[in-house]
């Protein structure tokens, strides 16, 4: 770039004391805004929560509690990574489960065909997820919103078909059985680690230039391009990052379950769950996906023990209700409120 240095230092146009007045109003406003909006408080809460989660297993949780926790962590990882492509760039990936399946099958195939030990295969899952995202994303991310969404659903179904059809390679509908790693505590920490990294990554992303560029793409792609943002690169980056994280989680889940087949690795319910949890929490917000995943799983575990067709009906109705009553999700609605309160207070101050 030709000139990155501040050449416009102090042009005298607006009277400087005006800016000073405005500045002095800032602390009052910050105080008035919701307490949760204070980043230090949020960081503190996060650290405390994390510390609690780190020591919890030491107090002898039983296996089912450990599994519940690691399920929540896993979903936080999935929803937060889905949010990067679907929420931040606005390209809603309706077939994101394809990466989960790719991760699981990467693990399964490497273990069975090359007889690799489990943990050696872990790095391969995100790599394959990344490559798949690159190959599929390059043509498909040129499509406008809805077309992209459905084309990804197509990719998801196509990969499931391939996993079913190439029986000799993938085991077909019979699936692949691994040697089981039955260590709930281990998976508790593994999924906790993934969730923390993805959530912190999202926090960083939202403040970064890349994150602003993604939001700009969501709002007005042509305008973003005119501002010098290579929108193709931004979209591809978001997609590849989201895809590789999901593939990683898919492979970890496969180890935890010790069995994969096309029906469970490429399951439709995963797509519904992702959409529902993130919408519930707040699509495109930083904390919404994690919040939605936690609330949803805890609710499901405590209130409903449904399966099969009841489960489908329940999810469908929940999705419809959430879309119609809470389109911005919990986090989105809260943020709106904070903003409104702030604006109101600012208005009062000015009228004084």
């Amino acid at each position, binding site marked *: 770039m030709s000139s990155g240095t501040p050449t*416009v230092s102090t042009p005298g146009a607006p009277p400087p004391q005006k800016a000073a007045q405005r500045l002095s109003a800032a602390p009052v406003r910050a105080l008035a805004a919701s307490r949760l909006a204070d980043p230090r408080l949020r960081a503190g809460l996060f650290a405390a929560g994390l510390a609690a989660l780190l020591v919890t297993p030491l107090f002898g949780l039983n296996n089912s509690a450990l599994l519940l926790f690691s399920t929540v962590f896993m979903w936080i990882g999935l929803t937060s990574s889905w949010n990067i492509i679907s929420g931040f760039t606005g390209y809603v990936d309706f077939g994101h489960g394809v990466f989960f399946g790719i991760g699981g099958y990467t693990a399964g195939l490497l273990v069975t065909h090359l007889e690799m030990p489990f943990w050696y295969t872990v790095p391969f899952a995100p790599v394959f997820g990344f490559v798949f995202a690159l190959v599929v994303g390059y043509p498909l991310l040129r499509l406008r919103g809805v077309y992209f969404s459905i084309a990804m659903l197509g990719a998801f179904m196509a990969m499931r078909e391939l996993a079913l059809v190439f029986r000799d390679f993938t085991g077909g509908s019979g699936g692949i059985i691994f040697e089981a790693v039955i260590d709930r505590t281990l998976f508790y920490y593994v999924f906790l680690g993934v969730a923390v990294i993805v959530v912190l990554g999202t926090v960083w992303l939202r403040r970064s230039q890349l994150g*602003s560029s993604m939001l700009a793409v969501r*709002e007005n792609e042509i305008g973003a391009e005119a*501002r010098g943002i290579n929108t193709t690169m931004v979209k591809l980056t978001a997609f590849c990052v989201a895809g590789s994280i999901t593939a990683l989680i898919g492979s970890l889940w496969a180890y935890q379950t010790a069995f994969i087949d096309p029906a469970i690795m490429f399951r439709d319910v995963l797509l519904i769950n992702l959409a529902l949890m993130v919408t519930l929490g707040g699509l495109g917000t930083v904390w919404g996906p994690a919040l939605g995943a936690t609330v949803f799983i805890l609710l499901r575990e405590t209130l409903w023990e449904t399966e099969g067709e009841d489960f489908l009906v329940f999810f469908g109705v929940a999705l419809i209700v959430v879309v119609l009553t809470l389109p911005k999700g919990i986090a989105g609605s809260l943020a709106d409120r904070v903003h409104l309160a702030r604006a109101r207070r600012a208005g009062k101050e000015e009228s004084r």
Partner: protein
Amino acid sequence: MTALLTAERVTCRFGGLVALDAVDFHVDAGEIVGLIGPNGSGKSTLLSCLSAGRRADDGRIRLDGKDITGRRPSTVARLGLTRTFQDARVFGELTVTENALLSRDWTRLPSFGLLRSPERAARERAAGLLDLVGLGGMAREKAGSLSGGQQRLLELVMAIMPGPKVVMLDEATSGVNPALIAELSEHLRLLHREENVAFVIVEHNVGFVFGMADRIVVLQQGRVLAEGPPDEVKSNQEVIDAYLGA
């Protein structure tokens, strides 16, 4: 010396309608060019073709000796040719500062505070420019909450931020209050001096554009009707008939 930005025989059609008919256009380094013409004469279309937002059906466009025909709009912007839109396009969900900083290069790796100087330089520059146009106090507001006129000013900042060689403004004064228009022309002059930016100003506010420009280009029905210093164009009978009126 060759011009900084040259367009040769740029043609653009919408179906049967010829919006630009082999238009030749150039901007010299540091020049202020006024582009005027009746509604629908092709001014905005010319800006789109120059900034690669729309692919010209024919013609060549060169910036600083480099052929930029058919490049991506983002590439053209990074090479130093930016624009604003007739319908201000700011990003309502980002804060004013985030909007201003949008043209930073995100592919640069994050430095996590170790190598802060380019980042800090960009922030200071953004703050300086926002202060200049009077948006300094709203830096942390969402751009969507700005008024129409303020959004235009923000878009101007966004176009200036990367330190371009040429900035093209599509009706920068529309929706800006009269007192601020005078201020705006001051700002533009200041930027012009300090950064040596060339401006292309598309305007219906005749007083503003004739006061600012070194040279005026008049478009009519996709062709260049007249071109020259403001005084000469002002007294050109054809221009009076087609656009300025008696």
